[in-house]
């Protein structure tokens, strides 16, 4: 194209702000030029600038406007794709005059350009799909009315508890009968797998390297408080990368599920701590896949590998820590995976449930069937496409994976066919609480067949005010520049986060979820056992979905 004005360049090949996902609305009249917004911006998407402008002024007691050309300071959004505004809103948060705000630009062409230098776009967060998920479309429609009195969530006794661990089929219980009283046949040599009683919502795996020290500490304190003071047995999974050495040797270990993933990070330290452990962990999770990024491994960037992280993970400081997308040694589920489950069980004397976690996938049923035949497999966690992550390729996050609802349902019904629905608990994750409906989503999954659900992103939002959402807001978790201090190892950033506040919020969130679960189960007439697989309680406003999930259609 010819330059429009002679030899002056017309900014061809420059991006216009219209291509950017968020456009900064800055108000000249309100801004007092304090500079806080430009200082806080994690990506330097805005910068102070100087401009010559025509300004109309009137300064005397009577209006006497005069126009002058003067140099003024402004705040401008840059049009460098590497410094795109993420819409996090940190600038608005710090602005004393409400002078600045990012605005979502739905017509953006961000993904057309975010591959500079041939680098495919990587980010943290979750799938960018703000549509209403299946979980949020499920309604609880079997309300007990006059024929079967509804229960009172405030008056009747409720037991919102689930089981984590392989459960023996009733036919195999090693029982003895003596004078009408049952006992356990200790001489039978029958292996009775370990089972934990837990609250049906757990905190899913988020690693100590991905999370900042105050974030992890806050979650851990919240969990311990819930167990010790509130009597709510909420458990939390560690994510890959080990656990703080002191925690490993503390009595609180029993509230944690330790994860082992493809990088085996942190396991030197864990194995070393084994003889000093005073409690067994709640369980061991073997991660084979993650719903947010099926087929993509993990990456903890060098700048996040500080002293503590390096020690816990047993690696040198400041090196990129890549977890391969797959376990390099696991070539078959029949042998290698079975062996891994067995060796992990053996490490704790078969006192700890060991279960794999996979990404939601059409192949989930095949995995499940293998586990169903393995008496040491303690369950299966299926992580659906709406799950979150600290770092992944955008394409993995947006386009790979399977929604959790039908995947879970299919697996559950498969277990029902084999009569093993109570033997192998299914843990569902991926998008629970996406729109804030934590208890409702959890209850829906339970009624579709889950024994428990895991949440990650939701807890970051609810407990630590993570900015992320499904409009690609913020999602800088992979960069170490988390403006909330949640996913960073930079002390300047993480000192923004108060671990006590996080713990407090964790407690509030779970207490509220407990109340809400009762509010859902009471009118459906369930209180003593979790309504696992009580699919007659659910309906959906779409016939095809109803058919797929084996529930009723209601409109």
């Amino acid at each position, binding site marked *: 194209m010819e330059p429009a004005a002679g030899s002056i360049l017309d900014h061809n090949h420059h991006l216009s702000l219209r291509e950017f996902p968020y456009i900064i609305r800055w108000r000249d009249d309100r801004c007092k030029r304090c500079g806080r917004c430009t200082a806080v911006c994690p990506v330097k998407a805005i910068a102070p600038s100087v401009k010559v402008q025509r300004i109309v002024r009137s300064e005397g007691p009577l209006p006497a406007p005069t126009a002058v050309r003067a140099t003024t300071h402004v705040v401008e959004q840059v049009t460098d794709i590497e410094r795109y505004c993420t819409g996090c809103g940190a600038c608005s948060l710090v602005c004393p005059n409400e002078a600045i705000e990012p605005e979502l630009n739905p017509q953006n062409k961000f993904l057309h350009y975010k591959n500079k230098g041939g680098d495919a776009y990587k980010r943290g967060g979750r799938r960018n799909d703000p549509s209403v998920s299946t979980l949020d479309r499920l309604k609880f429609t*079997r309300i*007990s009315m006059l*024929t*079967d*009195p509804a*229960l009172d969530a405030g008056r*009747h*006794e409720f*037991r919102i508890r689930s*089981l984590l661990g392989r*459960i*023996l*089929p*009733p*036919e*195999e*219980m090693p*029982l003895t*009968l003596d004078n*009408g*009283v*049952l*006992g*356990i046949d200790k001489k039978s040599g029958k292996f*009775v797998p370990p*089972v934990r*009683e837990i609250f049906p919502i757990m905190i899913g795996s988020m690693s100590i390297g991905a999370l900042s020290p105050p974030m992890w500490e806050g979650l851990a304190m919240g969990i311990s408080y819930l167990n010790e003071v509130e009597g709510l047995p909420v458990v939390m999974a560690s994510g890959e990368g080990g656990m703080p050495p002191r925690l490993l040797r503390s009595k609180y270990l029993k509230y944690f599920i330790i994860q082992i993933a493809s990088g085996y990070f942190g396991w030197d330290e864990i194995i070393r701590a084994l003889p000093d452990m005073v409690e067994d962990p709640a369980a061991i999770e073997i991660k084979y896949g993650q719903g947010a990024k099926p087929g993509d491994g993990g990456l903890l960037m060098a700048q996040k590998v500080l002293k503590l992280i390096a020690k816990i993970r047993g690696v040198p400081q400041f090196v990129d820590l890549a977890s391969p997308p797959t376990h390099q040694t696991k070539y078959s589920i029949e042998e290698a995976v079975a062996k891994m489950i067995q060796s992990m069980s053996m490490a704790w004397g078969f006192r700890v449930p060991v279960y794999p976690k996979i990404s939601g996938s059409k192949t989930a049923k095949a995995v499940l069937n293998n586990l169903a035949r393995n008496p040491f497999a303690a369950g299966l966690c299926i992580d659906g496409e709406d799950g979150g992550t600290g770092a992944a390729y955008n394409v993995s996050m947006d386009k790979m994976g399977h929604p959790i609802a039908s995947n879970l349902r299919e697996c559950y019904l498969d277990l*029902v*066919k*084999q*009569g*093993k*629905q*109570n033997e192998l608990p299914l843990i569902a994750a991926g998008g629970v609480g996406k729109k804030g409906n934590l208890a409702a989503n959890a209850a829906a999954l339970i009624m579709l067949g889950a024994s428990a659900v895991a949440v990650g992103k939701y807890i970051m939002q609810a407990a630590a005010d993570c900015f992320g959402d499904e409009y690609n807001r913020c999602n800088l978790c992979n960069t170490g520049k988390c403006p909330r201090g949640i996913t960073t190892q930079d002390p300047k950033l993480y000192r923004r986060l108060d671990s006590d506040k996080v713990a407090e919020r964790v407690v509030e969130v779970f207490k509220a979820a407990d109340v809400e679960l009762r509010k859902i189960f009471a009118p*459906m*007439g*369930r*209180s*003593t*056992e979790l*309504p*696992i*697989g*009580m*699919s*007659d309680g659910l309906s959906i406003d779409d016939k095809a979905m109803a058919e797929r999930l084996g529930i009723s259609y209601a409109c």
Partner: protein
Amino acid sequence: MCRLAAITSNEYISPMEPIMALETMKEGHDGSGLGLTLKNLGGAFEKLKKYPIMSGICSMAGKKMLDDFMKKEGFTLKHEWKPKLKQVKGIVPHDYYFARAYDYPAAFRNKSHQEKEDLLMNTRLSLRKIGEPGEALFVFSFYPDVLTLKEVGDPLQVADFFGLDDDRLKAKIILAQGRQNTNYAIYLYACHPFFIQGFCSMTNGENTAFVPIREFLSSRGFPGYMGYNSDSEVFTHILHYAVRQLHLPLPYYKDIITPLKSTEIDMRTDREALRLMKQSLRSLCIDGPNVIIGFTPDGTCFMVHDAKKLRPGVVGGIKGRYALMSEECGVDSAVPKRDRSKDLFPMKYDMVIVSPQAEEVKVWNQQQGQY
């Protein structure tokens, strides 16, 4: 809400007795059906104790199906009881009502009790399968010394229709249910009491945990766990599963359907077994609201509630005759001369157990795990 009336006695009684008790509870049922199961039969069946009795209803086509099938399987007819039907307004009669005692096929005469039981159940299921299309044939029970009658209509009118006051039919244990039709279309297989291999129970109230329980039972690989036209049928099957299949003593039925809290389990001497049971049998926990009345093959009768006791029941009587009813007025009708102060209103943790021949009544307390 359905009304339940059971009488257990050491003497033969007429089915009119529990039906009259139902009549006193009339406000509670809408007369949409009557179901009766009789055990320890008197009258003509008294001398036929070892022969299995098939009870059912059929059309003429169904009767042929039945005759052909039984002949093919090698059963021989020993005796047949047919009600003397009266025309009663509101009851549309089926073609044929029957209770037939058969002798086992020759190959089975010397088989074990269990093998015989399985044969009888499988025969019943086969007949159900061929007879269900077009509702040609309904078979409610096929077992020695047990007879079942079911029909849609007001209990007293149904009794009149069957001519039950003619003294021909008598038994020592009779379970009767006056049906209150709620969610389900009236279908004969959905009428209580339900029976499987010597175990019988009837229930009132809905069963909110029906679907997971049904799925669990149906996936046990036991052919008899099917049907489920009523959400209450699972209560009978859980009883059968616990006592016959898992060999658990009867009181553990209570521990299965209404498991204790962990802290309560810790107080029981059999806590280790209970912990395991609570996990393995988690899917069979009921959430009420129900009262369950039933009997086991040895003639023990029992009453038990869901943990919230939203459907209370009462047991009262004298040695040799006890009534287990959903309403006190029913007990008054069945055993008027008794010490009312001794009536039992089982509480949340209780299971009332009346021994065979109505010898004695005991309350088993779940918290203590003893009588």
